[in-house]
């Protein structure tokens, strides 16, 4: 397979007076056979980065290397996309509407003049793996979203690429098939030890597929690292939010506690700020009528405002009894009716503190 290295990559789009810095000095390295995730909000520059790696976009500045070989240089594509041995699954799959699913999958093989019998064998094989054999004779518009997505994946994998690029490949799928699609991609990636880069704004995609990831904000990589490291130790409020649900509420720093309405989080470290943002993920909080839970700290009384259920857990929205405008989202193993008052618990070691600009301070 291939090792990908990106060095100080910059892409500026100029449309008349409008200048957009879509990628700003981005550097990353993906080892041979490794998986890398690119996470960021809409318009952050994820697709632009992926398209540059694919060779579809000319860098304004910076270099891209495939195994130490330069493939893109400032204002120059050195190796054209067709010679990069890559596969790209587009955000919208980009299946050829005028070809059947079979012909879509066979297209890259026909282009390298593979014998018909060999093409047939490969297409059959991959469509069995991806469970789309029954729709091979259909046109893309005649099959479901999940089948189109798998067809796009089949087309990407059938030619044994050296590098697999995925641009939000699951975003158009409904929740149920999304999970199985992620698992499938991960399985194939592992089996072939295929170097893979996946772009998404959904952390679940990144967690299921990538080992390492970079977070892109307004064209810049703000943090790169192992995905659980990013999740547990985000450098800013933005990063923490991009990696998953998190409550961030303003708190007042008092002598031995951070105070949020009637809630008080024990805190005895010295900081210069009087106001901080407290970040804590729903799974690191609990709610109970009992006054003590092991490993958790009771921070005061709250009232349950909304109680809902999704994917095996109850989700609660709770507010300090003194202030209805402050809200926390909390996970709970049992159903708790709205209107009930109870104690809110947190795991203090999981708490993150940000300054008013959203930068992590602790």
């Amino acid at each position, binding site marked *: 397979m291939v090792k990908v290295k990106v060095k100080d990559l910059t892409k500026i789009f100029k449309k008349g007076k409008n200048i957009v810095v879509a990628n700003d000095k981005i550097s990353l390295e993906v080892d041979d056979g490794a998986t890398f995730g690119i996470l960021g909000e809409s318009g952050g520059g994820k697709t632009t980065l992926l398209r540059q790696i694919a060779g579809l976009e000319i860098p304004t500045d910076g270099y891209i290397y495939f195994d130490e070989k330069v493939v893109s240089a400032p204002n120059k594509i050195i190796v054209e*996309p067709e010679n990069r041995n890559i596969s790209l699954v*587009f955000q919208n799959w980009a299946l050829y509407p005028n070809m059947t699913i079979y012909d879509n999958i066979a*297209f890259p093989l026909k282009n390298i003049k593979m014998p018909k019998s060999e093409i047939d064998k490969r297409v059959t094989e991959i469509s069995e793996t991806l469970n789309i054999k029954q729709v091979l004779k259909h046109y893309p518009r005649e099959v479901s979203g999940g089948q189109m997505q798998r067809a796009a994946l089949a087309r990407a994998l059938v030619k044994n690429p050296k590098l697999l690029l995925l641009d939000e490949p699951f975003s158009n799928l409904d929740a149920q098939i999304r999970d199985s699609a992620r698992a499938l991609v991960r399985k194939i990636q592992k089996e072939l030890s295929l170097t893979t880069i996946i772009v998404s704004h959904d952390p679940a995609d990144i967690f299921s597929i990538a080992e390492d990831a970079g977070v892109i904000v307004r064209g810049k990589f703000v943090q790169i690292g192992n995905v659980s490291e990013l999740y547990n130790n985000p450098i800013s409020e933005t990063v923490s939010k991009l990696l998953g649900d998190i409550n961030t509420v303003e708190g007042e720093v008092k002598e031995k506690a951070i105070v949020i309405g009637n809630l008080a989080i024990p805190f005895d470290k010295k900081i210069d700020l009087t106001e901080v943002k407290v970040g804590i993920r729903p799974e690191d909080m609990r709610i109970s009528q009992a006054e003590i839970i092991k490993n958790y700290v009771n921070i005061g009384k709250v009232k349950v405002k909304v109680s809902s259920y999704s994917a095996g857990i109850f989700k609660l929205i709770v507010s300090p009894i003194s202030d209805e405008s402050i809200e926390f989202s909390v996970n709970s193993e049992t159903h708790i009716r709205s209107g009930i008052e109870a104690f809110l618990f947190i795991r203090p070691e999981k708490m993150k503190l940000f300054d008013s600009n959203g930068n992590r301070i602790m």
Partner: protein
Amino acid sequence: MNSRLIKYIILEIIAIIIAIFWLIPLYSMLINGFKTNFEATATPVLFPPKVFTISSYITVWGEMKRPLINSIIIAIPVAFISTIFGEMAAYFFYVTSERMPAVSNTGFSIISLATFIPYQATLLPLIELEASWGLFNSYQGLIFALLIFYMPTAALLMSIFIPVIPKYLIEAARIDKASDWTVFWKVVFPLTIPGFLATMIFVFIESWNNFFMPLVLTSSPSLRLIPVAERAFTGGYGTLYNDSYAAAVIASIVPLVVFIILGRYFIKGLAALGGGAKGV
């Protein structure tokens, strides 16, 4: 409900009136060909013939047969070749528009200029060129001259249809290692068939109706094309009205049939501009 009905009726009436205005020339052309020459001259054009005769058609047919075949021999290859090459040029401009905007823009300006330049202006050099190449007064010469004028038109029209294809399909094909030739024939062409047919119909009818080129580029009567042959029946001294009507009918029958059979593609091609490549 009632006001909607009234609006509908009014619109319908307007449409009928407009249609009648359009159809009157067609109607008078059709009926007058079936009159005797005396009746064609003496009765109002909108009156149907009292004595129905096909004698003028028989007379005219003898002289129009050859030009009809000639026109078919000329217009079909002109329409087909200019549209194919026009589409290739349009595709080229489309894919180079990003990486080599200068090339794309220059090419585009040239085809626009070539389309809108009055062809009388370039006729003299063309005649000289054809004479020196021995193409003057030949089928090849006519086809060549018409291609020069209609290829840019076709390229311009196809430049409107080609961008309907999403760029990502072309990019996907490149990543799938398709050559330019394969991308064009396997992806671009199949997805622009309505636009291709619309352009081809347009060029076909334009070259069918072109009067000036065959007039100046041919001299022998055996190479006459339809518009020139038809012209021979009108104007001049002692016009036979029933014959010229019949000649006009014969001259317009092919474009009419083409439009009736392929017209829906023409409309589909134009509609594809609004709806993206979805309806293809």
